[in-house]
């Protein structure tokens, strides 16, 4: 049985355990009383905040139950925010505004899941400090990348003008995503389109110019997987050149680097799967040791969802991919509490009903699996999640409706307790977002979190409605069934080799498309209320001018000429390390000083081969 099969068993066992404990709370009076005491204690210690209207509200909303069995079902079955199994949130407080006046409350400080509660739960109770009245980072994180490094840099400065903290998210152009240099044959038209062009670490220096890369208020996210270790090495080198080597342990952020979802859905992988995974693990091993604040892989369902998977498929493949990485890293001998807290996740959020609880269920399954199968501590049990609203759900016809679609998706994402979030721009069906629409996208989140009172006064404001619970149960059962299917192939990797996930995703995509036109899925202004047969709308297109593309090519030529001799030696050294089987990441950090992305990719492909696409 692969670890995934064990996870299925662990979740089933945990569900049985909860039922038994519910029964015990009803039959064993002393135990029942403990649970009730804890419940009352949590409620008593919940601080009270004040809405601008003067209304007093508890900062944590709990169901109105007073019976020992139901209390036990809640505390063990879904847990308080920030407590195992984390259904209600990986952390507490999250979106709440700081308390205006200091109040004595501190929920459940003495609770610790009840002294005689589930023994294994003991280590999960985070140390609870009184909420600090400091400005925390907002969860808004908008994906951007266009043209050359300096253009994206300008966009970053434009965006962060609207935010307290600098949380940047970087999109790369096609050639960069495929590890190809801008001067390669046939790619000229692609330079700077759909993201920015990076050929050398010097581009990376330009990209984050003006930002304090080592600051606690700065974090960078980079959405790239195939050549991720090379790009990561360039990021580290750029930071070292600007701030000196001591900056490295302070670097915060994440790089996507998710090979599984590339092979299953997104197709941006450049080395054979096995070699890609080796380079990835080399990077994770190094960064989890040397850069403790960095998340070196973002296990992503977004692209699985965008490729057409159903929400259950999306979450099931993503979470199972996560367990597969955990299995690989553990097999390398990396301690679980070194790598598990540094794994993070990325899900799509569309308009299907499953999204009401998709992230909640994913958090729960991850927590149980990591604790009971991998033996991870509390930090390694937390499913830390970035969400993006669905690009696939956006429609070109009467595209301003996309603002509403995105707003609904944002609600769902925040109801699910996402830790960070990207809201799509309404013009996304046409183009890399223009400033006009990306500004509205950023404002959408601010309106929801800052302007409206929905999320800022009370945790659990919308969690746990009967409908949400019904969706949760159905989604959990369906996800476990998907796990069993994957387990039948022998686990995630063998299932990939049989193209199981790919063919499932493709079938779902085809069905989705048919449903649009057979009326099962009405799309407003496209298949319903589409009386306004308008022309193509006038949307400002963001494209990279020819002269800029040429500038990138010229810069690269100069870099290559300047470093020609050194590059040769550096690549030879890299080749030796790769052939030796040693961790090649430290060498990559040296090599990027004198080699371009394409030079490095090319040399690595000579050694390990090319990725062979699966249809």
């Amino acid at each position, binding site marked *: 049985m692969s670890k995934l099969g064990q996870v299925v068993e662990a979740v089933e066992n945990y569900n049985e355990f909860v039922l038994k404990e519910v029964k015990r709370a009803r039959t064993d009076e002393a135990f029942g009383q403990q649970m009730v005491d804890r419940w009352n204690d949590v409620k008593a210690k919940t601080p009270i905040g004040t809405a601008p209207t003067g209304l007093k509200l508890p900062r944590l909303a709990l169901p109105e139950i007073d019976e020992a069995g139901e209390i036990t079902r809640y505390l063990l079955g879904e847990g308080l925010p920030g407590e195992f199994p984390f259904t209600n949130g990986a952390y507490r407080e999250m979106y709440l505004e700081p308390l205006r006046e200091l109040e004595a409350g501190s929920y459940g400080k003495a609770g610790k899941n009840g002294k005689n509660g589930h023994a294994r739960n003991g280590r999960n109770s985070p140390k609870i400090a009184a909420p600090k009245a400091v400005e925390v980072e907002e969860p808004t994180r908008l994906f951007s990348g266009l043209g050359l490094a300096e253009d994206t840099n300008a966009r970053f400065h434009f965006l962060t003008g609207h935010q307290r903290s600098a949380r940047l998210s970087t999109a790369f152009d096609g050639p960069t*995503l495929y590890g190809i240099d801008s001067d390669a044959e046939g790619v000229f*038209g692609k330079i700077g389109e759909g993201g920015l062009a990076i050929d050398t670490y010097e581009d990376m220096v330009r990209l984050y110019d003006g930002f304090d890369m080592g600051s606690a208020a700065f974090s960078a996210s980079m959405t790239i997987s195939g050549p991720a270790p090379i790009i990561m090495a360039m990021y580290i080198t750029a930071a070292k050149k600007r701030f000196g080597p001591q900056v490295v342990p302070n670097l915060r952020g994440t790089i996507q680097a998710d090979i599984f979802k590339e092979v299953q859905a997104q197709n941006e992988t450049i080395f054979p799967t096995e*070699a890609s995974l080796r380079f990835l693990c080399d990077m994770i091993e190094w960064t989890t040791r040397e850069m403790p604040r960095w998340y070196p892989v973002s296990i992503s369902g977004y692209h699985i969802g965008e*490729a*057409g998977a159903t929400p259950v498929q999306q979450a099931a493949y993503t979470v199972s991919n996560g367990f597969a990485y955990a299995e690989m890293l553990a097999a390398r001998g990396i301690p679980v509490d070194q790598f598990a807290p540094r794994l993070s996740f990325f899900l799509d959020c569309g308009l299907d009903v499953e999204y009401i609880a998709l992230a909640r269920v994913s958090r729960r399954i991850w927590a149980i699996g990591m604790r009971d199968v991998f033996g991870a501590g509390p930090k390694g049990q937390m499913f830390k999640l970035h969400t993006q609203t669905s690009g696939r759900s956006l429609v070109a016809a009467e595209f301003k409706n996309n603002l509403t679609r995105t707003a609904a998706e944002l609600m769902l994402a925040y109801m699910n307790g996402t830790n960070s979030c990207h809201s799509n721009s309404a013009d996304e069906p046409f183009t890399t977002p223009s400033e006009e629409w990306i500004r509205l996208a950023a404002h959408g989140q601010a309106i929801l979190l800052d302007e409206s009172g929905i999320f800022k006064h009370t945790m659990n404001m919308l969690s746990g409605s009967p409908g949400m619970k019904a969706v949760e149960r159905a989604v959990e059962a369906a996800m476990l069934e998907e796990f069993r299917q994957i387990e039948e192939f022998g686990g995630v990797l063998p299932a990939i080799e049989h193209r199981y996930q790919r063919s499932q995703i*493709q079938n779902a995509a085809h069905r989705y498309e048919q449903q649009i036109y057979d009326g099962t899925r009405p799309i407003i202004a496209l298949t319903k209320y589409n009386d306004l047969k308008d022309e193509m709308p006038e949307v400002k297109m963001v494209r990279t001018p020819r002269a800029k593309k040429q500038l990138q090519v010229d810069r690269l030529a100069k870099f290559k000429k300047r470093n020609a001799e050194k590059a040769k030696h550096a690549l030879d050294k890299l080749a030796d390390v790769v052939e030796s089987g040693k961790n090649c990441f430290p060498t990559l950090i040296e090599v990027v000083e004198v080699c371009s992305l394409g030079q490095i990719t090319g040399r690595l492909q000579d050694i390990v081969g090319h990725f062979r696409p699966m*249809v």
Partner: protein
Amino acid sequence: MAAPIRVLTAVPICDGHDSAINTINLEFIRHGIEVVYLGYHRYATDMVRAAIQEDVKALGISSYNGGHVEFFSEVARLLRKQGADYIKLFGGGGGTITGNDDVIMRRNGVDKIFFAGTSLADMVDYVHKHYGGPHKPFRGSKPNADMQLARKLTEIEDAYANGKKKRPTPKGRKSKKSNHGQTRVFGFTGPGGAGKTTLIDELVLRLLHREPKARIAILSHDPSVVGAGALLGDRATMINSQNERVFMRSMATRGQAGGLSPATEDCLMLLAGSGFDYVIIETVGTGQEAMPFQTGLVHKTILVMNPDYGSRLQLQKIVMLDLADIVVVNKSDQERARTATSEIGRRLDQNKQSQILVSTVANRHRDAGVDELCDLLTEQNV
């Protein structure tokens, strides 16, 4: 019955967005169209070469991450330059392609752009209406060798599809002498999922590398969907075979059992007499009783096996084990491979026909087993 429309579809270089094209491919196939799918992240030159060799009516490109004006225009230019603009160019990219782009692209030679919101049914209709009908004769100056060969292959396929030619009954079939000058013909067969396509592509990589002037032809087969078209997807996997020294043709079985098409034999004859150094033919995944390549056109038959064939009893039923010159156990890094190799080895020994057994891991870069197979196939006087 009229011959099905053949189109080639692909996604441009540095673009992995294949969700739309996968859905469109499926819909085309359901409506009787044969789709040669080249895959994603593909160069303009590879698309044009493939479209010419496959002699498709139209080339469809799905582009989602920008640069489409340049890319489509480049493909149109290359088609025109070769005199191959009888192949119509169509495509789409959701909302990323604007009305203005469309004007420029059509001026540059693109036939049709499907805008965001076009239904699948409308696309299928368009293809049937505009890309059906007989092939147009080449225009003006002399067509190049690939174009001529490709058209002859089309004529053979169409003659069978139209009922003008019928596959000879086994009785009437003459055993043909393999006499194609220097051309060596290799036939690959075996069950689905054994890795034939990957193995052939790795072999092609080695042949191209070892013999810098060698030219290779590949005739690959995929099954037709009952009552519908076919997805001919081998090109997408055969990354090394998309090369200027390789002529590749994908064929649908069009209702014939046994792993080949009614027109295969005639097509193979044509290829074998066209001056290639090597001609490689691949069947679809075959059953136990299949016995392709029985007419002497093939110099060497290679049976590619998966170690997971089941029990020894199953092994006894595989007819090709008695007929193949070389038996390859691919995926020999799998757990069961050791048992499989020894069981198959014993079976071949009993045959006493000096058949050769090779173990390979085709999807491993620089695999020594594939090197060995390449040596065996290129030895003189084999």
